[in-house]
């Protein structure tokens, strides 16, 4: 871990500014609602959100800066994990749950692997992974009767 030089919570202020925009967007959206029952609550909440965000930005500017701690971390693997999850979700209707889930499992296994791939690991890890995916698939699809997608690619 390394301590960065003292700095203001710029990230927190940026997030608060983004939330101000979210609040404004929500207020703008409520203009279209026909019924007062629909807009009174979101308008109050959006208004409160904007007030708290502005207060947070002002508070950050007024108080002394903090020291921020950051550790050595891999951004690429993080992004990779998110992409794999999204691709697995979006490919489910086409490839089917089993195939997209299995592919996602193997891809995430590669992303989470920091040790060298020994001969034993190359065989054992994918085998155990396949068993886990098949086990959960069986539990949800056959025991709990969840209709997991079979995939248009195979069902036509």
């Amino acid at each position: 871990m390394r301590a960065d030089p003292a700095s203001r919570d710029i990230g927190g202020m940026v997030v608060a500014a983004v939330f101000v925009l979210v609040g404004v967007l929500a207020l703008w959206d409520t203009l279209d609602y026909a019924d007062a029952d629909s807009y009174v609550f979101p308008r109050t909440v959006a208004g409160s959100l904007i007030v708290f965000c502005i207060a947070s930005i002002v508070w950050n500017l007024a108080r002394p800066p903090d020291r921020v701690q950051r550790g050595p971390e891999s951004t690429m693997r993080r992004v990779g994990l998110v992409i794999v999850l999204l691709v697995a979700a979006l490919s489910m209707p086409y490839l089917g749950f089993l195939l997209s889930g299995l592919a996602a499992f193997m891809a995430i296994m590669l992303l989470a692997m920091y040790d060298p791939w020994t001969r034993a690991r190359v065989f054992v890890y994918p085998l155990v992974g396949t068993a886990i995916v098949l086990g959960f698939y069986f539990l949800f699809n056959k025991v709990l009767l969840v209709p997991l997608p079979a995939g248009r690619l195979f069902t036509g």
Partner: protein
Amino acid sequence: MNSLGYLLAALTPYHVALALGGVVAGTVVGSLPGLTATMAVAVLIPVTFSMEPASALILMGAIYTGAIYGGAYAAILLNTPGTPSAIATTFDGFPMAKRGDGDLAITLACIASVCGGLVGAVFLLSLAPPLANVALAFGPVEYFWLAILGLTLISALSQGNLLKGLIGACFGLLLSCIGVAEISADVRLTFGSQTLLGGIEVVSALIGLYCVPVLIDLVATPDRHLKVEEASRGFRLREALNISWRSKFNLARSSVIGTLVGILPGAGGSIAGLVAYSEARRSSKQQERFGGGAPEGVQATESANNATVGGGFIPTLVLGIPGTPPDAVILGALLIQGVRTGPNLFTEHGSIVYVFIWGLLLATVLMLPTGLLIGRYAYRSIVTVPKAMLVPTVAFMTLIGTYSIRNSVSDVVIMTILGVLGWVLGRFGFSASPIVLGLILGSIAEQGFVQGWIIGAAADNLWGQFFGRPISLGIFAFILLSLFSPLLLNRLRVKREFARAD
């Protein structure tokens, strides 16, 4: 059905098996460093959807209580809390392990967890029904104020930055408005997206906000190659029982602290453990032993964090306001099953709630043998599960669990996006818990607010509608207290430090 009938219903072989399986599963997940009790409940919850509500609650309660205890293993043997609620367990647990008393510390933690869990469950059994009777007097406006109280409390407690907590709570409330409005059927905050028409499904949002950020962080750092060096000398149960008996007041006090902290919305096992630890240290005649391997430190933390399980269920079941983050997940699961928690639950669905409470007591008792056996024989293999197997398994469970809630791919996409959002916000000090609570309490808050607003506007007395009833005023006073007490306490502390410096 009377109390004996509920107890017998909880003792059916099916429920005993669920309680046992839940405790084992929870203990295993909780013992893995990086995976929280909330995550344990969230990833295992889809299994309960096909069950009866009472059985589902027993399984979820058992997973929760097991996961809280499981966090102690890694805290004691590796100086790494398995769950955040075991943070204070590391203070004395690890020094005990270093001097060769790790096995004793684990047995002490197990006994303390069982004591705390039992005290919490007994409080739940004895306090919840009379509180439910009181809550029957609450009207929609009181429920609105209660929801706001929950949100302000969690904002104040979650990460120390009140304004960020309040921003998160408002964001969660806005998320709860997405979709078709319940009363007027207006389409709200979808911005033309068909995917958002159905609204944000609560449990998939919870899985995203609580599980995906953990996975993102787990995948970003190398495995720590955890190794348990110490050779075990057995359970040392007699020795642990003697020590526990000698510090029975510490156990009782910490359990009560844990129960009370659990009742506060959003304040979970980590806060309870730290408060009980500091109280045990303050009241000890040998304060210098704390931090260097004092068994009382382990006992205080572990009894308090397990007592939050029963304590947290009190507002969850009585008011529909989750006491701890895992309670929020359990509440979401109950909503899917069509069970609306609140005071009427005790009168209309007594068979669900009382069977569950007895089931929770049963699961807590079962934690003693299972906890000791897992600690003795299985812990080494659990803790050495390689990250390359752990991360994809949990990720796959989030995918299949989220999909199975509504058989919807959109929910999986929303879960992932919310998870990424939760991770980004977490990096800048915005905790997930206020967002989650806002999302869960959104419908209660909106119904109460809109009804109060309509009646107040019709009677031309909005102020009187929201502030005119004693219960509303009482809850509002608590809201002000929760908002301003951190500031006042901070000012007092600064003044005291100045006085000491002078």
